[in-house]
């Protein structure tokens, strides 16, 4: 069976700094991959390459059987135009560490604007969709609030609703709870857990090891731009083989 997401031989460098040095992964429809690793290991860059927020230097992404971000030309590959890329990006929802809600729009409009401006929905349709998505993340009661009036956890839940409104084939979570106060992490993880239970396909970069264990079908441990160890969560997190992974897990548990 064709995987929903296929990443092949991904390389990315910033100037002379090599961040990704040959990463391959495949995600089946409805599955969840958790990516863990120390900061600077390239896990966020990998995620950002998947939706072409960063353009990889080498390697290819396939989403749902289609080449992503590039077009095949005679004998090679060429980056898509921004317009073509936008159409493809709409298929992938992304949740950022820093939320990035749009401060000039209230919660409902944050969720409704892309359905309107990208998919051409009417205002009424888009608002209905937004209210349904806000309900999913338990934020209906704050639909009229502006982001500044919301806590970090609430902002992140609205940001998740915004991504859901795209009706994406795949959700990317880039350390969604790392910027949150400890007491707010739970509400966000709960929402992500509920989405996982719906059978959504996800790639999660996270520092929440227990959460990764609960949610993911597959765990990838990255170090220095490559995959160091991967496998089912019980194996990777329960019986790690690699020394660096063992060290990393010990460090996280201690904290």
């Amino acid at each position: 069976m064709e995987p929903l997401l296929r990443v092949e031989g991904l390389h990315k460098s910033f100037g002379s700094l090599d961040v990704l040095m040959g990463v391959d992964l495949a995600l089946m429809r409805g599955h969840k991959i958790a990516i863990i690793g120390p900061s600077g290991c390239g896990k966020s860059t990998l995620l950002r390459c998947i939706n072409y927020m960063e353009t990889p230097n080498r390697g290819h992404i396939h989403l749902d059987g289609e080449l992503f971000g590039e077009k095949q030309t005679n004998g090679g590959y060429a980056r898509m135009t921004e317009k073509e890329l936008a159409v493809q990006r709409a298929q992938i929802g992304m949740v950022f560490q820093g939320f990035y809600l749009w401060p000039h729009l209230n919660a409902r409009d944050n969720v409704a604007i892309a359905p309107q401006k990208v998919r051409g929905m009417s205002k009424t349709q888009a608002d209905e969709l937004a209210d349904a998505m806000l309900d999913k993340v338990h934020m209906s009661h704050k639909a009229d609030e502006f982001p500044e009036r919301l806590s970090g956890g609430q902002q992140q839940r609205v940001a998740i609703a915004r991504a859901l409104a795209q009706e994406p084939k795949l959700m990317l979570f880039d350390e969604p709870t790392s910027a949150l106060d400890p007491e707010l992490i739970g509400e966000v993880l709960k929402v992500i857990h509920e989405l996982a239970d719906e059978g959504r396909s996800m790639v999660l970069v996270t520092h929440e090891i227990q959460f990764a264990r609960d949610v993911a079908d597959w765990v990838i441990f990255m170090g220095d731009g490559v995959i160091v160890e991967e496998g089912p969560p019980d194996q990777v997190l329960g019986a790690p083989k690699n020394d660096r992974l063992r060290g990393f897990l010990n460090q996280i548990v201690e904290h």
Partner: protein
Amino acid sequence: MEAFLQKIYTLGGPLLLGAVTTVEITVLSFIAAVVIGLLFALLKLGAPRPFVWLINIYVEVFRNTPVLAQVFIIYFGLAYSGIKVASLSAAIIGLGLNGGAVLTEVFRAGLSAIHRGQREAALSVGMTPWTSIRFIILPQTWRITLPPIGNYAIALLKDTAVVSAIAAPEIMFYARNLVTSTFETTYIYILAALLYFALSFPLARLVDHFEKRQRAWQ
């Protein structure tokens, strides 16, 4: 008393006529400055290098020379090279280009104050770069740039006085003409100053009002 009112009446008439032109020059050169400033600030974000250099040269030249010299060069320089421009047009072109340079920097600063995550979030939901600028970036830029743009507009209204030097028929032009014909120097300039105040004060209040309203949804 009657003589005083009579004096105000004869002096005020031409000055009011000039005030109409002052407003006209202010509004048109303000529009030109906003269009130029916004366009160039956006181009500086994404245009090829040579364009950016040209914009930078334009900004530095107009920021670092007196607007009076710019207006003279446009008016007499163009006439010298065979292009006849009316003094009113030269005034609007000069003040518009000058303001364009000021507002290019204002908008650039406003745009760069917006976190890149704002744009990335917009791209991630499938917006094109232009859609993200139009609906996500620019609305936030207005909020940041409104106070400096408002202050620029107030300064511009008063700076239009310099174009009397090329005989654009605004308040100060009429004022000087009246001085030479009536010698009522003090009266005339006080009246002229009052006229500027009457135009500028409501504008300043309007800017304050917008600023407060914008702050409401912060």
